[in-house]
């Protein structure tokens, strides 16, 4: 459970970072954290683009609008001509760019998950769209629509959620960022490398808390399951424990037996758990490739193993104590 959920968290963030890098921009600009005052999720004016184009070393500026579709899905509005200049263009697997105002283009994972093909209809945000093209995954977003259409439908004319910049020398992007931070205080301005590096578990508080909760639940469940299993095992082996004690086995010897068995169960459980993560990974890739991406996070194998061993050993304490405290005569007469 821990490895699957950690894998999904890492996978989702890495996939987002991969798509962000696929944009081909050197700098990303996000709006100030003032959405409560502005009452808008897309608070940046499109007129910032000409201002940014005038900045030294900036060769291209284009903006996008992002609308949540609930869950992990978003609909991204793009100016296709500008975006193609920035990214080199989408590589279409089927179909092509927008033909009409109500067209969307989707990536191959989304198309597979929703069983879409070119010409399919899909309702997003209570609005009917037609799929004009299916592109190779890894660029910006999974679903894109025309920027001006999305702006109009969401009553956000000439508004943007994010701005991407291309500079003449990518190695000098940091100095452009520093300059822009002085000119646009309060805005979140990053080089794409910096932005990608922010997409980690530790920088997303919600995911960090989520993983903490999952670990807590896993320890409690592990503790309860092992405790119940070992308690039942001790009860079932009351007579055997009595015989061992009658033959002179010490408390330490019996405890050692119980803890070794627990340890073995925990290790086998960990190995089985690791193998099962490959199963869930395959399942997600084939059932919900656009919604959930699971990665194999090797550095979490020993952590998950340690958590399972600690949980199991804690769970074995009471059954072990019960076994040690058994009276030999009563144990031998146990039917």
């Amino acid at each position: 459970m821990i490895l699957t959920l950690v894998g999904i968290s890492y996978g989702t963030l890495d996939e987002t970072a991969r798509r962000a890098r696929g944009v081909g921009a050197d700098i990303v600009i996000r709006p100030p954290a003032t959405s409560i005052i502005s009452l808008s999720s897309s608070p940046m004016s499109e007129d910032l683009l000409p201002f940014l184009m005038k900045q030294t070393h900036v060769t291209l500026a284009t903006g996008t609008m992002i609308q949540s579709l609930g869950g992990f899905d978003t609909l991204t509005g793009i100016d296709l001509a500008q975006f193609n200049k920035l990214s080199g263009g989408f590589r279409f697997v089927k179909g092509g760019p927008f033909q009409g105002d109500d067209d969307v283009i989707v990536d191959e994972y989304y198309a597979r998950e929703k069983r879409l093909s070119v010409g399919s209809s899909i309702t997003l945000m209570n609005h009917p769209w037609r799929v004009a093209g299916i592109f190779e995954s890894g660029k910006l977003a999974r679903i894109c629509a025309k920027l001006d259409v999305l702006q109009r439908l969401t009553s956000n004319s000439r508004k943007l959620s994010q701005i991407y910049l291309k500079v003449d020398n990518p190695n000098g992007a940091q100095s452009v960022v520093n300059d822009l931070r002085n000119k646009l205080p309060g805005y979140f301005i990053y080089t794409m490398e910096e932005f990608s590096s922010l997409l980690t578990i530790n920088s997303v508080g919600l995911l960090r808390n989520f993983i903490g909760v999952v670990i807590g639940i896993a320890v409690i469940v592990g503790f309860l399951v092992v405790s119940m299993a070992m308690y039942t095992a001790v009860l079932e082996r009351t007579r055997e424990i009595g015989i061992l004690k009658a033959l002179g086995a010490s408390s330490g010897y019996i405890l050692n037996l119980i803890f070794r068995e627990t340890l073995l169960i925990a290790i086998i459980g960990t190995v089985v758990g690791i193998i099962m993560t490959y199963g869930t990974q395959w399942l997600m890739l084939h059932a919900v490739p656009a919604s959930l991406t699971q990665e194999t996070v090797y550095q979490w194998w020993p952590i998950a193993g340690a958590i399972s061993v600690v949980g199991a050993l804690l769970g074995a304490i009471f059954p072990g104590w019960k076994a040690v405290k058994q009276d030999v005569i009563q144990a031998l007469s146990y039917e």
Partner: protein
Amino acid sequence: MSFKPYHMNNYFFLMTTSPAVRSLFVRFHCTVWAVALLGISPQVGSTQSTSEIFSRLDQSAQSFTAATANIRATTHTGVINEDEVQTGTLVVKRYPKNELRFLINFTGPDAQGIALKGQMVEIYYPKLNAVREYDIGKYKDLAQKLILLGFGMTGHELAANYDITNLGSERIESQDSVHLQLIPKSSDVLKQLTRADLWISLKTSCPVQQKFYTPSGDYRLVTYSDVKVNPPHLPSSAMDLPKGAKRERMN
């Protein structure tokens, strides 16, 4: 002549400072009032003192049940010197447990409705015929206190959340008002709002204008006109977004 910066935080001034400073303060006030009474500055006579404003707000907050107004919001982007104007209507209503709810209906090409109900923000998009619901959780109080700044709020609530400076009397939207400068005390709020200016109408004790300054140097100026406090015939549907719209829960 206007009654220039007068630190409202000094509401507790007389209780906390030394006798010498207190005496100086009292003498300063006596001089100002003497000048006002002699008719040298007719505007000073209409200036409200801190305690007067507070008691006025306290009184109106007690009886406040609802308000309606026309709204004009100007969002200024400093770096490109651009103003974006939205106009519409506002309905504010007090519910049990001192909860304030609002519905703002912006009109024009970018028409949309925005409602705050408890910790849910609902946004109605007419062109999509859809209402998108967002749970804003811990930001509920912030949204209520910022967007409804001055509506049904007691003076003590204001003083508890902001350092206040009285900037004197001004006439806004053909109404006499008191101009207060508010600096948020909470570091969390300061991240979104460096300063807010509030113009309280002397007639309705509700805001006629709010100005929110953000750390980016931009501001949002919201002006209220035709403000009706506790309107007698406010229908229960006044706070509703269109019933036929498709609702989508976003988080």
